[in-house]
Structure formats: C-alpha cells, structure tokens
C-alpha cells in the first residue's frame, strides 16, 4: 500500500508540473488557435533564471524558502518577458497568415531558444540547488517528500487563482470574449493585442513556476528539459481537451499518474509507451479530449 501511495504522490507531483505547463498551451490555443511549441522552452528558461538568481543570492547568505520565493518570482518575470517578446516577434506578424505558418514559426522559436541557452550556458547537466528543504512535520511521512508537497500545493493555488482571474476580472472576461469571437470582441472595444499579450505573460509565468519547482525537486537541469516537458505537457493539454483550463489540469494529472504507475509496476522503460498509448486511446474514443467539446464546424 505504501508503494502504491508513493507512486500516487509521485504521479501527482509529475502531473502538477505537466498541468502548470499545459495551462500555457491551452490558454494560447484557446485565444489564437496556435500550438505554441516554444512554450516548453519558456519553462526551461524559467529554470535557468532561477538557477542563476538562486546561486547569486545564496552567495549573499540567503537560503530556504525565501530564496525559493525570490528566485521563483524573478524567474516568472523573466519568463513572462520572454513569452511576451516571443509573441510579438514570432506570432503577431503571422496572425493573418495561414495556420501552418505560425506553427512553423513556433518550432523555429523553440529550436532557437534551446540553442541560445546551449551556447549561453552549457550542454551538460548542471546541478540545481534543493531550494525546498525537508519540513520538520514531514519527517515521519515516508510516502511523500516535502518538495512534492510544495509542488502539489503550489499548483492547486495557481490553478485556483487562474480560474478566479478568468471568471471574475475584467481581463479574464476579455480573454473569454476573444477566445469565442475575436472580431466581435474587437468591435466592442476590446484591445485584442493586449489580451493576447496578457495570455502569453500569464502562461509563461506559470511555466516558470513549474520549471523552478521541478528543477529544485529533481536537482539538475540542462537546455533540453523544455523540449521533453513541452511535449508531455502538450500531450496533457490534448488529453484534457485543448482550450479548456480544467482540462489541462485533469490531463496533466492523468498523464502524471499513468507514467508513475507504469514506471512503478511495469518498467521505467515503458513510461512513454503508456503515456502516449493513453493519448492514442483517449483520442480514439474522445477526439476532443476528456473535457473538450466536440464542435461541428459550420460550413
């Protein structure tokens, strides 16, 4: 039973990170119908930013949670700036182009950012400090580590805040309006460019949170982590129903558990087989994803 719970919480942690990244995919898709393949890179940049900031600050003698918070916030801001700029450079000029063009632009952006970090940093794995120390009250708990607890709680809080933001604020309403009918929103005075920028900023900041937390949990990063995490999070978003925010979270968790149990009961070699097998399975029976709505396109 303990083993099961361990796998359960391991999957929950992994799934939370997927969910944090998947939120960015799903929000951007909801607003401009673009699969932002460079989104994983934003997550990777978040992790690197936090590493640099945390290393610098630890020299000043900071440690523990305050270090995590500070480097996390700076990583969020930095990643948000990258996300914002990326949209302006790579996607905005192509907004009226055919749908394949921004997709290719996204792949180009992804390759560019990976190689940029490769050149600026290193191709090797670098170790990431464990910013989340073991909490005293968690000492007797064997099935879950403190960092896992922090990841799960942070994801829950972030998702709740995001949901409230979208439901109740003025910008949130504008986002939903733009997602449903961009032209009409524009005609009602909504500044669509600003809404799209806000979407990229929020999605990127969430990805940075995921990047910082998982790096601190695993303890090492390199320039390539964004690619793999990005593909997995994209899978999670599709699994849950792309365009749907609760769908991204559910998709992330389902994927996390699948991988965790497959690793634990079968073999870690089969982790991806189960993950993508699940994707194929769900897409056969629910093509729009778990929470996605099948819409018939009007001709």
């Amino acid at each position, binding site marked *: 039973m303990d083993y099961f719970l361990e796998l359960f919480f391991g999957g929950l942690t992994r799934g939370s990170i997927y969910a944090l990244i998947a939120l960015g995919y799903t929000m951007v898709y909801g607003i401009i119908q673009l699969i932002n393949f460079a989104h994983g890179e934003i997550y990777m940049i978040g992790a690197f930013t936090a590493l640099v900031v945390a290393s610098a600050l630890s020299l000043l003698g900071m440690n523990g949670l305050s270090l995590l918070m500070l480097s996390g916030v700076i990583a969020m801001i930095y990643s948000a700036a990258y996300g914002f700029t990326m949209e302006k450079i790579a996607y905005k000029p192509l907004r009226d182009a055919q749908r394949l063009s921004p997709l290719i632009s996204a792949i180009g952006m992804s390759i560019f950012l990976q190689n940029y970090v490769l050149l600026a940093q290193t191709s090797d794995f670098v170790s990431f400090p464990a910013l989340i120390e073991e909490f005293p009250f968690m000492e007797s708990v064997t099935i879950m580590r403190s960092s896992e607890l922090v990841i799960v709680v942070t994801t829950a809080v972030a998702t709740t805040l995001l949901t409230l933001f979208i439901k109740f604020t003025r910008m949130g*309403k504008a986002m*939903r309006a733009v997602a*449903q*009918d961009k032209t009409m929103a524009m*005609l*009602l005075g909504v500044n669509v460019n600003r809404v799209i920028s806000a979407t990229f900023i929020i999605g990127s900041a969430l990805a940075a949170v995921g990047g910082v937390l998982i790096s601190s949990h695993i303890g090492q990063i390199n320039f390539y982590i964004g690619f793999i995490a990005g593909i997995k999070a994209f899978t999670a978003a599709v699994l849950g129903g792309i365009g749907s925010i609760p769908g991204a979270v559910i998709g992330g968790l389902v994927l996390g558990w699948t991988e965790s149990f497959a690793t634990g009961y079968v073999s870690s070699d089969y982790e991806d087989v189960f993950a993508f097998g699940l994707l194929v399975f769900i897409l056969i029976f629910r093509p729009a994803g778990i929470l996605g709505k099948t819409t018939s396109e009007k001709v």
Partner: protein
Amino acid sequence: MTAPQPVLDVRGLIMDFGGLRALDNINIQVNSGEIVALIGPNGAGKTTFFNCITGLYEPTMGDMIIHTPGKAPVRLNRLKPNVVTENGLARTFQNIRLFQKMTVLENVMVARHCRTKSGIAGAIFRGRKTRREEQEMVEHSYRLLEKVGLDSYVNELAQELPYGAQRRLEIARALATEPILLLLDEPAAGMNPKETHELDQLITRIKEEEGVSILLIEHDMKLVMSISDRIYVLDYGQMIAQGTPREVSENRNVIKAYLGEAFDA
C-alpha cells in the same frame, strides 16, 4: 431650426475587392438624433459599408469622419475596430454574434471594457478605484439590460436565451460601449411580426433615451418605413436613391432595383 449636426459623414467611399468594386463613390451622412436606414437588394454592399466604417475593411478611397459633440472630428480611416468603437461607433450583426458561453451580464460587461481603465495590476491588487469602477460597470450593465427587458435573465448563458432576446442582448451590448452612433445590421431578421413591432418601439426608445443616432440595414420594409427619418438605397455598390421614406418608395430606380427591369415596360 438649427442646421442638422452630422454625426457620421462618409464621402466618396470606394471599396474594391480585387477587380470588383463593391462600393462606388458612396456619400452617407447621419445627423444627430436621426434614424437612417440603408436598404437595397442582397449583395448591394450594405454590410460591406458597415465593415468599412467599423474598421474591419480598409476602404480603397474616401473619407469617413465621426463628429462627437464637444470633441474634434475623428477620421476613421485606418483605425483599428476597437479604436473605432472607442470613438463612438457600435454595431450588431446580421447573424447573432453573442459570446454564447458567457452570461447575459458578462456579455454586456465585456463591452464596458473600452470605457474603464483598470488593467492587470488593478485586477490583482483590487484597489478602491478598481472596485468602484467594477461596481459602476455592473450597475450600468443592469440598467441597459432593464432597458431592453432582459433584467430577469442576467445570470443565464447567452446561448440559452430565446432568439428575440438574443437580438435585444446584442443591442444592449452595443449600447454598453456608449456609442454616439449605433449601427444595426438587419435587427429584425428572423423575427415574427410581434417581435418586429417591439423592436420598432425599442429602437425609437433607445434613440430618445440614450441620445444615440441610428443607422440600420433592414429588409423589413414596414419597419424601415415606419421608423426611418431618411433612407439611402444601394444597388450593386451604387447609391441609387436617397430621401424620406415617401420619396424613396416612389422612386422609379428603387422600384426597378427591387422588382426588376420588366416592371418598367
């Protein structure tokens, strides 16, 4: 009598799509407090005209100017749709374009967007100013919904409203942007005679109570003739007639455009 104050002044408007001239040298004026109708057979260019003045299309030539009382006239050419809206133009569509997955109240509140200031920072920190603004937004939206008789539906999803109510919600939403000129694209399309009659009264009431001028595209001639002060008639992108309802209904060109050449013989 003071001279009529123009609200919208369009001169020499030409819209080409490749080799096709969809609008040819169109002049349309709407004066303050007027209800003006734009009629014509299908494909005459009426909706194209709306798309030009609201910034969805960029006209090939011509001037489109909006005069807000107490402000300098603004040239609408090359302005983005949201900026056109900020300058006092609001429109509805022929086919209903509500935000179907949002509530009735939210639909109207989105349109208040351009008249409120607080940004992301305001949303996060929710200072006094933001909260007051939001309060004002909700109250204003309620008032508009009451005006079009939808105040009992505020929390329903837009997609759950009956057809006639959806039409009225579109009008309330357009009004929420505080326009000085309201553009209605076939507001009576698909309505039964009773609903059309109510719409007739609603449009007149809105004009008086909200102080907006109205330019409407409509095929229901009974509605057009009863509420319009003036009528413009388009056919194949050309302006073939204009004048009071009476003048237009007696115009030979108009009769020909609607009923065909054979009528002439």
